[in-house]
Every structure is written in C-alpha cells, then in structure tokens.
C-alpha cells in the first residue's frame, strides 16, 4: 500500500515537473509604458492588462528586417482568428519617433492590413521611446543615412503583465509564436 502511494506520488510529481517544464518561463514584470498610438491616443501597457500582449520594436522606413518581422506578425494575426483583439494584442513601437508620427504609423498599419482592433502602433518623444526600448533590452542607435539600428526583439507578456518569453530576430517560427500566444491565453 505504502509502495503504491509512493509510486503514485512520484508519478504526480513527474507530471507536475513536466507541466512546469512545458510552461513558458517567467522572466519578470514587463516594463510599463505610456506612448501615443496611430490615432493620437495615449496607450499604456497597464491598460492592456487582461490580454496577452506581443511588444515589438520597428520603424516604418526600415528597408529590410522590420518589414519581414511585421509581415510575419500580420500572418500570425490572421491565423489567430477571433482571439486576436479580444484576448491577444500586438504593440509595435517605433524606434524612429521623429519620423514616425501617428499619421505615418496609421498609413503604415493600413498598408500592412493590420487589424487595429488588436494591433497598436506607438510613438512618443525620442526620450520616452529610448527609455522603453532600453527597459525591454532593445539597443537602438541612429545610423549614418537616417536608418536606425536596433535589436529585433519581440516580447510576449501574459495577462498579468509578466514578461514570459522573447523572440530574437525575425526568422523565428510563426507557428511556435502563435502557439506561445495561445498557451498564454489558456493559462489560468
């Protein structure tokens, strides 16, 4: 009897460990921000609490990697179906705020077929944007000809405002990205 109980306890402990292993890690509290949307409204991370949020950093005149990242996110947006906007939000923060005004961001979003019910494009003062980028671990530096070098880093934040996982670069698997978003939606 005792052996049976011990065995059952071990199995349960193993299952719990497996579940914990499969769960996305907890990195820490996601830094809050207060920036201006494509519609001119102030948007904070705090206001998105209750949704799973993907935060990324781009700029609209970026010639190469940002469009690839944004296109990948647009395809994930389409694949998420009704959860997008209701349960999941995307936030793209411009690292070129002097050029990327709300109007420019709105045009960019429309050109991408971004669903603005769930996808917000943000800008702000250069100091505010630099601060947010820095707090998310994104290095930003102006390049010689008006381009902006920056880390391509996309951060997933759970409903409680906790940073759970980051995606580096633009070559990540969009299906894994979608899966992680849905896992966070389904977490209690």
């Amino acid at each position, binding site marked *: 009897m005792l052996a049976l109980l011990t065995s059952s306890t071990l199995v349960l402990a193993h299952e719990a460990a497996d579940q914990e292993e499969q769960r*996305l890690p907890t990195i820490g509290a996601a830094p809050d921000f207060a920036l201006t949307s494509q519609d001119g409204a102030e948007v904070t991370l705090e206001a998105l609490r209750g949704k799973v949020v993907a935060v990324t950093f781009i700029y609209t005149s970026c010639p190469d*990697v940002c469009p690839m990242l944004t296109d990948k996110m647009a395809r994930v947006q389409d694949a998420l179906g009704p959860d997008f906007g209701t349960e999941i939000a995307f936030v793209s923060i411009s690292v070129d705020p002097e050029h990327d005004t709300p109007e420019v961001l709105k045009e960019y979003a429309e050109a991408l077929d971004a669903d603005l019910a769930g996808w917000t494009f943000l800008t702000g003062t250069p100091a505010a944007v*630099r601060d947010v*980028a*820095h707090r998310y671990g994104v290095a*930003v*530096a102006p390049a*010689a*000809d008006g381009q902006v070098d920056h880390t391509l880093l996309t951060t997933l934040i759970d409903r409680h405002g906790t940073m759970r996982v980051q*995606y580096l670069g633009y070559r990540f698997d969009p299906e894994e990205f979608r899966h992680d978003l849905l896992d966070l939606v389904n977490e209690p």
Partner: protein
Amino acid sequence: MQIRPNRRDFLAGLSAAGAAGILGTPGSLAAEGAPETTTIRLKQSAAICFAPAYVVEPFLRSEGFADIQYVDAGLGIPSGEVLARGDLDFDITFAGTVVHHLDLGRPVTAVGGLHVGCYELFAREPIRSVRDLKGRRVGIQSINSSAYFYISIMAKHVGLDPNEDIEWVTSPEGSTALDLFAAGETEAFLGFPPEPQELRSRGHRRVVLNTIVDRPWSQYFCCMIYGNAAWVREHPVATKRFLRAMYKAAEFCTAEPEAAAQQLVDGGFTEHYDYALETIESVPYDLWHEYDSEDAMRFYALRLHESGMLNSNPNTLLADGTDWRFVNELKRELKA
C-alpha cells in the same frame, strides 16, 4: 584592403553620439535585477570569428553595463591565464583549450557555446587528410595553443598518436605558424580567421578540413564563452545579461553581416573588411539555440583524455568548470 562604407555604422555612431545618451541609463531593464556590476572586461583580439564580442557593446549597454573595456592581454599569453588572475572577466576560445585551463587548475568557468568552426587545416601535397599528417611537420604557435589541442584531437580521432606520429614545429619568437607554413618550413597548419584569408591572399588555397562543414567538428561548438570563476559566481545576474547580450550580438552578425564586418573595421579589430565579411557570412552564429554547449565540452574533454593530455578526470573538470544554468535559461527565455 577593401573597406566599404556602410550605413550601419553602429559602433562609430555610438562613439560619436555617446552610447549612454543613445541607449539610456544603464541598469534599467526591469525584468531581472540590475547586474551586480556595470563594468565588464573583454579581450581585445585579432580573431575575427569572435565577431559577436566586438559588436556586443550596444547590447551590453541595453543590459545595464556602462563601463565596457577591451583589454589587450598581450601577445602569446593564454586568455585562461589572464582570466584566472582576474585581469579579464570573459573571453572566447576553443572548448578544448578551456578544458586544458581547467586541467591546470585555473579558476575559469565555461558558460555557453558561441559558434561552430572556423578552423581550416591547410596542407601541402601529398597530405590529403588528417590521417596523412603522420610523420609530417605540423606548424603551431606553441605547445598548448588551441591549434595544438585541436589538431591533436583530430589526429586521435583518426587513430594517430599526436605525441608520436606528428612532428610539431613551434614558431620561434618574432615568427608565426602561418609564416612558417607560407615559407614551406611546415607541411600543415590549422588557421583561424583571419589566417585562412591571409593564406589565400598569398596563394595557398589547399584546405583538407574545414571545421564549419566537416563532421564531426561541425556538429559541436568550437568556441566557448568562459569567464573568471569568481566573477561568474559573484555576478550571476551580470553573467546572464552578458550572455544574453552576446547572443543578441551573434544574431546581429547573422542578420546584418555587412554591418557587423564594418563595425569590426571601425572598432579596430581588423583592417580587412573583406576578411571580416567572409568570416561572418560563413560562420553559423545562429546555432546557440540548437547546439548543446555541455555536449561540446564533453566531446572535447573526452578526446583530450583519450589523447593522454589531461591529468584530471574529465567529468570532474566539467562538473567544476562549467555552469550551463545561464544558457539553459536563455534558451527558454530568448527564442530565436
């Protein structure tokens, strides 16, 4: 020498504008605690393969480091020795060399693999394979150099006894193993960028093994990031942030090889833009997620042990001299 202007003049831009001003104040990433120290010292080296270490500065700043120093450790002094005496915090070297430092009792800790490759074995006729090194004059900078360990392991792997079957030729002071090979005084030479590029520019193109593509070498990290053991132990947050910055820099090299190459030139790490670009484009810097650092260290430690080159038990060395917690956490937290 070809130096192409490049729009992504990252390091130069940072220097001109003031990195702290561009990237914000250090230590403000909220997710983890701030690093226990904001100073970090890396080695100034001419080895182009370590490109991520030369473009890492902005990424380190975004991780909270404010004082980033590149230390000229002196020619011919093993970085493991410099690390062990605390004059350097982190460096990168061949995994087998890290094992050797551990075997000597040097207090260093390997924390993660950086890349596969990028050694090329140049050889004169009639050498066509590693096995053909038997009885040949093989040039190395010195006994206990990384090339010495790597060739020894390769030789052992094909059944040779590196101590008995190879005639090692070390370089006299003021000369290099590359010069000896180019002058015909040795018959084989294991080069590491920029040496292969330099040899090719002198007309030597005969390569019998390239660790980027040839198995089993291509299946393991060549080069390990390792640090002073006390520094790693006393600065776990800083260590993890440093490692994250290195992997971000590695991603930058993969995504923007031309920009990275130009930064190496601007930063004074090489004069040769074309050498840097060729190297950065050929080295797979994006395998840190896929490859297993522990497996690589074990592979090389066991091969050194089989070659009779270790005094200590390899398992003990690996247990005492590695800490994979940081890279394992980053693999979960930082997908790529």
